[in-house]
């Protein structure tokens, strides 16, 4: 009885008692959700166009961020550094296509998945060798990213919104809109979708797989760069960021592997669910001592709960199996 009370009544009473705190929590959840969604977006892009489950997206975020900061520290002006970093991401995409994807064409999914693991290891070693293992501070000011907080009076309290978070949300939405147009309206976008449907059929109508892959990995690289800047501006740019790539996994699964809107909705659900769980439900159910740190696994359980009802994710295409 008390357990049921703690699940169904306690947390909500707590929320109603301090609505400003609730709004703040929801906002925090929303922001981390947007950032998860950004990483998931990189995953989805690559999965859609090449069927590769790209584990290296997380390290690409770190790598892009480190390159940008490293160049700036070496004396390159901020915006030139940004341009060069985009160039580096392009070079990376070409190298990956040449060295990893082309020799492994038409292999089973799990092999390609493992290859991106190898890529992750390689990039970790390479990044640490070039930039050192220490966390770096993102050059947010130099890129004219807003700083400070906006305080909104609400429900008799103050809700404080970081400007950088607002910027992240705006940039993420712009990027999603841009990608949607790119996928639906342009010639290359159509080719991408054709490749996603069937490699062989796409090849037979004259679409170059190699070109498409470079484009897709480059796009994912740019998404990674944006994620790296946003996430780096909130905390530091360090290799620990790579772990958040794993958080993108439940987001991705929740939304369905092939859906761009799914990545966004999934990210928001996971982000908000995680924060609500951490602040309201876990302390009420598990007690304040035990209830800390549930953030580390809650996302996976939320995704799991959704999956049990929709095994293909919220927006995924229905899985049809034939013998």
């Amino acid at each position, binding site marked *: 009885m008390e357990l049921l009370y703690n699940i169904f009544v306690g947390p909500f009473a707590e929320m109603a008692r301090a609505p400003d705190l609730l709004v703040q929590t929801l906002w925090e959840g929303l922001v981390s959700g947007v950032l998860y969604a950004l990483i998931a977006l990189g995953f989805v892009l690559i999965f859609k166009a090449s069927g590769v489950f790209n584990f290296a997206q997380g390290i690409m975020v770190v790598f892009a961020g480190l390159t940008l900061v490293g160049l700036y520290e070496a004396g390159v002006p901020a915006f030139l550094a940004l341009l060069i970093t985009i160039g580096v991401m392009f070079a990376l995409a070409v190298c990956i296509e040449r060295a990893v994807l082309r020799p492994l064409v038409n292999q089973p999914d799990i092999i390609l998945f493992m290859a991106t693991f190898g890529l992750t290891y390689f990039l970790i070693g390479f990044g*640490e060798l070039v930039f050192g293992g220490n966390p770096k501070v993102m050059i947010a000011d130099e890129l004219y990213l807003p700083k400070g907080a906006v305080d909104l009076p609400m429900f008799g309290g103050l809700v404080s919104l970081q400007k950088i978070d607002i910027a992240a949300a705006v940039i993420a939405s712009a990027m999603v809109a841009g990608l949607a147009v790119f996928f639906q309206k342009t010639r290359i976008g159509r080719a991408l979708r054709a490749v996603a449907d069937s490699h062989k059929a796409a090849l037979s109508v004259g679409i170059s797989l190699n070109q498409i892959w470079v484009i897709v990995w480059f796009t994912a690289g740019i998404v990674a760069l944006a994620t790296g800047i946003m996430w780096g501006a909130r905390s530091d740019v360090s290799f620990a960021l790579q772990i958040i790539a794993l958080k993108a996994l439940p987001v991705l699964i929740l939304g369905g592997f092939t859906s761009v809107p799914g990545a966004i909705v999934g990210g928001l659900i996971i982000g908000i669910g995680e924060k609500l769980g951490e602040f309201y439900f876990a302390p009420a159910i598990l007690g304040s001592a035990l209830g800390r740190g549930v953030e580390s696994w809650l996302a996976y359980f939320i995704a799991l709960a959704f999956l049990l009802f929709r095994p293909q994710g919220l927006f995924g295409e229905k899985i049809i199996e034939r013998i």
Partner: protein
Amino acid sequence: MFYREAGQFKTTYAADMAVFPILQDKIGIAVIVAAAVLLPFLGAAGIVSPQTQNFLLQVVAIPFLIFSLASIGLNLLTGYTGLLSLGTAGFMGVGAYACYKLTTYFPGVNIIVWVLASGFFAAGIGVVFGLPSLRIKGFYLAVATLAAQFFLQWCFIRIPWLYNENASGAIEVPQRTLLGVPVTGPTATAETRYFVVLAIVAGLTWIASNLVHGRIGRSWMAVRDMDIAAELMGIKLFDTKLLAFAVSSFYCGVAGALLVFLWYGGAEPEVFSINQSFLILFMVIIGGLGSLVGSYFGAALIYILPIVLRLLPESLGIPIGGATIEHLTFMIVGALIIFFLIVEPHGLARLWQIGKQKLRTWPFPY
């Protein structure tokens, strides 16, 4: 020339089904087992110095065997049944913590019994987290096992009961003896621990080999190849998949208990982090999905190669800083993973098979 089955006739079905059907294979495995048993006597025989001997056992052989066991566990699940798992380290942790709790509650019982018994606890947890596999497939299943990984690791950190409320938050292995000889704890010699690990790993490998060659293994492989077809043929998916989870987690749990009790001598929750899971997945894939010998190859490559890489510049007299070597090791391991996947996506086990085939026809090309 020397590896040829000509003249070896089989007169029974049992002989035809044998795991090592050819005399040369039997000799080969006997040589390997003998070498493994004789390894700790190299020092006593004066072939290597006692330090090298200790290094060989403590740093190379014991962990290699333990990781091989964990890879076999994961291979039974991912390679034979086709269920992708990223929670191996979590299940290993369950084994380690279960063994620790059991041996502190019942110190009188033989530690080997508890190491094996802790596997059953891991199996139970494995079955619970395997339940979603009936509905969720492929990469989607990875999230269920990731849930296991992160949830279990959180338990190891947050539940003080698991580590007996130690101030350090880590478990420390108490001393336990077997027939008067210390097996675990600081006074146990590397030789003793090596023999215990070798016996357990060899025994469990033998059981695994029998499992995968029998009815159970065949139904696992049928499920891997196509679960709907397997179901139509009368294989109960529910039982088969959960059994795979249980057996796999049992192996991982025993490996985890061995890892802490006979190698590390103590463990923090960090030992069972997601990186450990990935490392074992590497071993399985590089070694070869669906191959027991591949698990050994994979463990050898992924575990021993970095050790060699670390020692190499020193022995060649090239001055490189420790951190640089660490980074280079990462790069080389990453590049090698990609290289091996490109050369042979079916893993080292497949290369081994091709090599044997080549040897059969040698000196002719075919």
